[in-house]
């Protein structure tokens, strides 16, 4: 790892500075949404559909409305009178705010009660009578696309079936040619199951609309407050200057807090109509059954390979379960997010990716759960395929990867689906991870264990992520270009405030972004306040998700700090009576080239910026930068998992998990490692237990933490972390973004390890989560087939 260039008291890049935000959060002095109390505040509770698919014949709200303490009962009919029964989604579809015609998934919003306290509001929900006629539910995308499937979106003009979209990319003819030239074709069909980000804090809003001024202050659990302000202006028709979104401390987002949910819109409308603040905070069950799910991709991949283990081409067919409304939060050019990064870390000429989405009677979402828009699914598929290809060709899975890697000298490398990878050294990374686990020794131990009837498995995943959306020529969400911003003000005493367009949900922005400024200007990181989340007080940006904060907002921070450094050098030259070009800035000290004893500090310069300027210079030391990245960044990693499988029960235990990550320059190594440990835990979760299922009636199984399993420290294996550091050549400080790498990369490593333990029996696939009954059934059927 690169050594820091600043002393510890400045705490620039490379220092593991303690997180500034932790003290207030740990000591209970944070300010989360549910902490917000306003005078005359009312409370909202939402009535939800018990059915996956039903027609609404009528809603009787009389008894609820007559309850003491109930101020209003809101239905779709009332919302419709204000043109707000439906709202646009982030993928160009529309979504019901409160159902008027049909309910299309269990948990859909049907009515809302506004009352003087949350108990009364919740009690009154039980008094609302909804007359439903049940309709047959559509519970799988395969069923959805059959000709006799019930039409889910019958309200949508021109919609004749349940197809959401079709999308393809790559070169079909070249891919067909690659397959024709191959010695063999390795194929895999697998389902990346539906999961839910399940942040500890559920979603919520406090809407405070002033009935006289029209000023709407909306406190909201938002990962993208600026984008949400603009969308609110568009949806509700409110003038944008009257909307202030405040996203307070957030107890985890993971993509779940990117969409605008119906509850936000109803609470805001209610506050507007009632002239009082309205609070709505979801219960855990509401969060799990109705807000943005993730994944749910049915994938079929085929690799064309030679007998020498060279990959020639890749063909992918994907069918996604979108739920009842198409509301993926993703760049508008791409219908399946960045799934086409599915060629992974390998150098081959041809790929063709064919995607299709289907409506079902399930909650909408398709959010990027700790993932840069469907990269998790893509990374999983290619790493599972390459592992299987190694078995079929008969070479070691590590060797298979080394034979096909993009080589360091090939960067920048354009993939067959149009990504231009910025930098990397994959062979070095994988070899370092292999050495750490003594891989080839381990293979011998595996062999010896098998002879004793024990099943050891070694799984590898070498992933490449595409993060930091993104360049304005390609990336927008709902038309808004995915640029981001930073505003930096240095105060006369040499302290500073940095205002960001991105918004932390635990990533540590208040610390790491200060470190970027510290690195460049030499102001100690502890002297730099970082502000974010309040749209009235921060510059515009698209928010924090898809690992974009450091690649885009971090770049903006570096650029604005350099702008101030340039001005500061001129001021220093003035103070030192030297020429501008002779001034050198080093860890907060401006000195004259060749005369190091002639120097002034950043604090001296800051004071001079407001008191003593060169002729003609404008006062102040502040600026703002909007950064339009020239490319995405491409972090990568090599993960190796060792498991032992119990052949009698199918249970498996992780014996080792080695994770090597290369995210370019590490601003705060401690925070990077924290991000990786969190991501690995979620990867372990998805591979072993964390999924949302539905019964045949469309009832959600997984509506609380007894049924939706999120691992704790008790279940989670120990992680051994390694790193290499190949900087991004185009990022101002060489950083690549890391928040999601481990979630993206690790599921395949865990699954590959279990498959590897039983691959000698002929097992080639076990779908996630790799539940013990699935493992046992795979062993059992493979053993029976052998007899």
């Amino acid at each position: 790892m690169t050594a820091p260039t600043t002393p510890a008291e400045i705490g620039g890049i490379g220092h593991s500075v303690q997180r500034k935000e932790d003290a207030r959060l740990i000591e209970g002095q944070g300010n989360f949404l549910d902490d917000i109390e306003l005078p005359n505040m009312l409370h909202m509770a939402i009535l939800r559909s018990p059915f996956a698919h039903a027609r609404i014949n009528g809603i009787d709200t009389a008894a609820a409305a007559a309850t003491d303490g109930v101020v209003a009962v809101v239905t779709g009919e009332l919302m419709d009178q204000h043109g707000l029964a439906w709202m646009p989604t982030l993928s160009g579809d529309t979504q019901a705010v409160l159902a008027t015609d049909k309910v299309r998934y269990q948990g859909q919003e049907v009515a809302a009660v506004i009352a003087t306290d949350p108990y009364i509001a919740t009690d009154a929900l039980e008094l609302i009578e909804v007359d439903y006629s049940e309709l047959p539910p559509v519970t799988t995308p395969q069923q959805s696309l059959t000709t006799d499937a019930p039409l889910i979106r019958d309200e949508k003009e021109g919609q004749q079936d349940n197809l959401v979209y079709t999308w393809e990319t790559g070169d079909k003819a070249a891919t067909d040619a690659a397959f024709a030239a191959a010695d063999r074709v390795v194929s895999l069909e697998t389902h990346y199951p539906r999961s839910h980000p399940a942040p500890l804090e559920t979603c919520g809003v406090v809407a405070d609309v002033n009935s006289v001024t029209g000023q709407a202050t909306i406190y909201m659990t938002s990962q993208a407050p600026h984008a949400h302000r603009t969308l609110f202006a568009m949806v509700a028709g409110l003038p944008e200057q009257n909307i202030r979104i405040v996203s307070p401390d957030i107890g985890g987002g993971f993509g779940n807090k990117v969409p605008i949910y119906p509850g936000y819109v109803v609470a805001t409308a209610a506050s507007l109509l009632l002239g009082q603040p309205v609070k709505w905070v979801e219960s855990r069950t509401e969060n799990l059954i109705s807000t943005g799910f993730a994944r749910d991709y049915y994938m079929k991949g085929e690799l064309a390979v030679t007998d020498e283990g060279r990959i020639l081409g890749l063909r992918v067919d994907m069918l996604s379960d979108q739920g009842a409304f198409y509301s993926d939060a993703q760049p508008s050019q791409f219908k399946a997010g960045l799934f086409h990064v599915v060629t992974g870390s390998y150098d081959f000429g041809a790929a063709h990716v064919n995607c299709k989405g289907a409506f079902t009677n399930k909650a909408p979402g398709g959010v990027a759960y700790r993932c840069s828009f469907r990269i998790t699914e893509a990374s999983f598929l290619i790493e599972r395929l390459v592992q299987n290809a190694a078995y079929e060709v008969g070479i070691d899975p590590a060797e298979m990867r080394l034979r096909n890697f993009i080589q360091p000298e090939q960067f920048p490398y354009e993939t067959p689906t149009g990504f231009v990878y910025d930098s990397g050294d994959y062979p070095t990374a994988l070899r370092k991870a292999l050495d750490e686990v003594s891989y080839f020794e381990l293979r011998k131990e595996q062999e010896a264990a098998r002879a004793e009837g024990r099943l050891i498995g070694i799984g590898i995943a070498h992933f490449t992520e595409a993060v930091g959306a993104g360049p304005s020529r390609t990336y927008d969400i709902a038309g808004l270009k995915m640029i981001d911003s930073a505003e930096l003000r240095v105060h006369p005493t040499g302290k500073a405030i940095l205002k960001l367009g991105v918004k932390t949900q635990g990533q540590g922005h208040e610390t790491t972004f200060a470190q970027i400024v510290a690195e460049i200007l030499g102001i100690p990181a502890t002297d730099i306040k970082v502000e974010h989340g309040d749209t009235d007080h921060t510059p515009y940006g698209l928010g924090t998700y898809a690992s974009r904060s450091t690649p885009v907002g971090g770049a903006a921070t570096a650029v604005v700090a350099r702008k101030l450094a340039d001005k500061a050098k001129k001021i220093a030259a003035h103070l030192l009576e030297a020429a501008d070009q002779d001034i050198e800035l080093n860890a907060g000290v401006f000195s004259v080239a060749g005369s190091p004893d002639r120097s002034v500090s950043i604090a001296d310069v800051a004071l001079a910026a407001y008191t003593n300027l060169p002729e003609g210079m404008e006062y102040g030391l502040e600026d703002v930068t909007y950064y339009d990245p020239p490319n995405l960044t491409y972090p990568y990693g090599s993960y190796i998992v060792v498991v032992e499988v119990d052949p009698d029960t199918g249970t498996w235990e992780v014996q080792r998990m080695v994770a090597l990550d290369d995210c370019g320059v590490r601003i705060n190594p401690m925070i990077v490692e924290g991000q990786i440990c969190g991501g690995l835990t979620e990867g372990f979760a998805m591979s072993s237990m964390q999924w949302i299922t539905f019964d045949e009636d469309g009832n959600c199984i997984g509506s609380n933490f007894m049924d939706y399993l999120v691992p704790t420290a008790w279940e989670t294996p120990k992680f051994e972390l390694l790193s290499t550091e190949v900087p991004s050549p185009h990022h101002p400080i060489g950083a690549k973004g890391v928040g999601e790498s481990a979630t993206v990369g690790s599921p395949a490593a865990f699954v590959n390890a279990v498959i590897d333990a039983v691959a000698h029996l002929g097992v080639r696939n076990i779908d996630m989560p790799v539940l013990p009954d699935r493992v046992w059934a795979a062993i059992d059927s493979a053993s029976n087939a052998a007899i």
Partner: protein
Amino acid sequence: MFPSEFNFVAVSSVAEAVQAKVVAGEDGRFLAGGQSLIPMMKLRVAAPETLIDINGIMGLSGISRSNGHLNVGALVRHGDVVASEVTFGAIAAAAKWVADPLVRNRGTMCGSVAHCDPEGDWNSVLLATGAAVVAAGPQGEREIPIGDFIAGAFTSTLGEDELVVGLRIPVPTGRSGGAYLKLERKIGDYATVAVATHLELDAAGTISAAGLALTSVNPINTKVAAAEAILVGQQPSEELFAEAAEIAAAAAEPRDDVRGSAVWKRQVVRTYTKRGLAAAASQAQGS
């Protein structure tokens, strides 16, 4: 958490508790650790009119041995059982498998027994060890053998006016051992499958008493008497345990669900019965 409205009564003696229950009737519920009841109230699956808090009753927090029995009071937390030095065999083995440390700090053993959740751990252990439930009512105390206490899923033979005040678990006099093997999806989850085993050996090493019970694979916690019968009078052996395991597997009637297939659950019963009996025998032989 926004439960339905309820009355709250805190009592300080068993007599007061029983009297409060007489007044509250069937819509009254006793509150001890609350680790099942409170989540049900949160989800509004349960909406008792009256909660009778028994946590203030003195004298129900003890776990001790007397007259050949292990006596567990109604306010003994699972965590107390984990920490106790007077437990034995399957009781000691199961305690650390109950829920997770947070729930164990608050939840009570008697509360779990009274709840009669077929996925609960303790009733299998009590079936394997031949324990009894002590209930107090307006007419005084009575002892109910655990097999008679469990009436069905979430139902017991406890009278409407009765409170479970303790458990009486016979302590083996000779060499004994026990185990509780539980397959759970994560720590704190209910059992997907669990098997409680209890063996006592005579001086010759022959099995003199045997207990075997299953969790989560039948509508109620199930004692496998047929397997117990073939064990008694035999020397412990792999073949004998395999035979008992087949009987246990046949006695299990698991269902396909999100936790796994029925055929696999039966396989886990088979495997865990074998392993559990072997562990119990090994413990007994070393005692």
